[in-house]
């Protein structure tokens, strides 16, 4: 990529970066049509700011940064409208995980061993499939926070301000998302 430094070559963008940007989006949004649209939007937005490119990063890094903002916009949109209904349903799901009075696991929802504890690489593939399905059941906002935190190693501050949640709420959401995810795995894997 060294040769790409310092200058932009828009005529080569599709050839050089389209697949990469598409894969990047797909792994974060899981929607082919939307991913295609975002790749196009990224190129068009980039064309408009070509003169703002300072050559401090590689062309690909620069394009990815533009794309990343667009993905966050999608997260924001996805989680705003349905936020309440969806989140309430997901919260409802875990309401009886713990006893109300003392916070103990309830008998019916306590974690049980399900054979991943020692991380057997052989179960990996099939298990990953279930993991992905379970992730898609999470409310959009939880999913967005979870994805940003695991994938891009974004700092908590950035995620909180981008998605408009407080720090305290951030950890509550990470916790809730993981509780539902683990429960979903237990239900579907054993």
């Amino acid at each position, binding site marked *: 990529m060294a040769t790409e430094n310092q200058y932009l070559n828009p005529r080569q963008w599709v050839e050089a970066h389209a697949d990469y940007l598409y894969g990047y989006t797909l792994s974060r949004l899981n929607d082919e049509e939307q991913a295609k649209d975002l790749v196009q939007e990224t190129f068009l937005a980039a064309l408009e700011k070509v003169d703002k490119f300072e050559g401090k990063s590689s062309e690909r890094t620069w394009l990815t940064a533009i794309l990343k903002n667009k993905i966050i916009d999608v997260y924001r949109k996805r989680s705003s409208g349905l936020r309440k209904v969806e989140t309430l349903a997901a919260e409802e799901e875990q309401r009886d995980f713990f006893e109300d009075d003392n916070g103990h696991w309830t008998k019916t929802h306590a974690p049980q061993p399900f054979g991943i504890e020692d991380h057997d690489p052989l179960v990996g593939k099939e298990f990953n499939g279930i993991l992905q399905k379970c992730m898609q059941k999470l409310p959009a906002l939880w999913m967005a926070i979870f994805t940003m935190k695991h994938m891009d190693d974004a700092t908590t501050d950035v995620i909180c301000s981008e998605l408009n949640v407080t720090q305290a709420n951030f950890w509550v959401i990470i*916790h809730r998302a993981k509780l539902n995810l683990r429960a979903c795995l237990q239900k579907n894997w054993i």
Partner: protein
Amino acid sequence: MSPLKHIIYNCKQATLLIEKRQFKKLSFREFVELRIHLAGCSVCTLYNKQSQVIHQMMLQLFHDSMQTTGVHLDTGYKQDLQIRIEKELNK
């Protein structure tokens, strides 16, 4: 109930700390509380194990999806994109 007792018997709070710890260093107090809880709670010990494995798998999953060269935009779409870009450049 003292705050210490609160966490020692509270799995909900303990699992929150387990999640937090995967991204952030716990405060000394939180660290001690969690240790005490885990020493006496086999269910949360199991949760802790599973949670970490899931965490690793998620990192792996996202990492892999970035590596896969299997993802390609279809050629037609790319051609359209190319034309679109040329058009913008020639404006």
